[in-house]
């Protein structure tokens, strides 16, 4: 079924294609609501463990040149 691409859709598709190409999974078949059972698994969520993510990012922030990309508003620290 053809997909009508609006501006934001185009951006989303480019990002999608880049990642899919890298991972060798270049298919796009968005599911219906009743097909999302596997997507609900904790392992499929990007924010499943915010505490561990925050602590680990802080370790890397204190040992590497710069940090970013994971979010905003976390505040600074004297570690870097």
């Amino acid at each position: 079924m053809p997909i009508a691409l609006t501006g934001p859709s185009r951006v989303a598709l480019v990002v999608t294609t880049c990642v899919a190409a890298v991972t060798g999974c270049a298919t796009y078949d968005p599911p219906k609501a009743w097909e999302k059972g596997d997507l609900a698994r904790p392992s499929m969520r990007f924010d499943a463990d915010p505490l561990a993510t925050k602590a680990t990012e802080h370790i890397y922030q204190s040992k590497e040149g710069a940090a970013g990309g994971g979010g905003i508003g976390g505040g600074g620290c004297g570690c870097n």
Partner: protein
Amino acid sequence: MAVTDRSPSDLDPSAALIAAALALPGVLSSNAHAQSAPDQGVIALRYYDYRDWQPGASRMSVRSPLLYAFVPLSDAWTVEGSVLHDTMSGASPLYHDTLSGASGLGITDYRSAADAKVTHYFGGQSIAVAGAYSTERDYESRAASIEWKTWSDDRNRTYALGFGATRDRIDSVNGIAKHRHRETYDFLAGITQVLRADAVVESTMTWSQGRGYYDDPYKLLDARPDHRRIFAWLTRYNQYVPAMDATLRIAYRYLDDSFGDRSHMLEAAWVQPLANGFTVTPSLRYLTQSAASFYRDPPFPQGFVAGEPFTADTRLSAFGAVTAGIRVAKAIGADVTVDVAFNLYRQRGDWRAGGNGSPGLAEFSARWFEVGFEKRF
């Protein structure tokens, strides 16, 4: 909605997952139901034991208990927050440190931090307002942020926009930095896209623009620019693998820093459920970064010119770094999970990809243990 009239534990596993999917923000169609907040609360505790070292010398040790809570207040409001307390002791990495390298003194410090976020869900959108505060012996940071999200009608795509501001104050214990400040403004734009019933991707860009005091007052002759811009692009991809009931998680981040350093980070993890509620997750992370334009190689103070930016901070050198980790989690009943994790991290100049690493760096290693407890309600 009939499927939510029963608890997930009453359902068979596949039906429970579908019920959970329908309960996720961004899954249920807005034509059938207005966007509502997640209805499951979480309280989590973690403890970190961190230590790093260089050949022949133990460096820093850090112990950190952390507490996190997520509480749904109603169909439209949630609140979440965390607190932590780091206790640090030891010495900074070799080369040029005024506390450990030159004076021979060690470091003892602490960091206490807290943050809170309130999120309001309405009509297929959400707005979150957050604040954060942290304090150390020589450092204080205050931050605030706002983030807006909206979901497509089929709930397969999420857009996010955010803005944050941070104000830091530096009062070094050696008196070199007195009442110095730094202001940083952050911007975020992101997309999350469900690709298939078993794959989802998220791509987020953040821009950070800061001005103020960036020198490290504990490093001799350290002088950095008074402004900094960081662009980071993080893309994450999760793929469920039905044949093994496992999930492959991949992340890539490109980062461009106006200090001159650029980095590429690639991370992969394999989440493998086992019998009796166990899950094992091995992970591997690789980072390669170039040096800041004003980083100078040893011997110190080679390359120093008065009045020009200069640093011998090895964190701004060119190197590669590898982290190997493993996490083992155990589900206890439907609502409790405990986990332990171990990570080993190593930095070496000659592990840099796409160019030469900085010469003369002592290999840097770190390891950290984690213990976690999570209760959902």
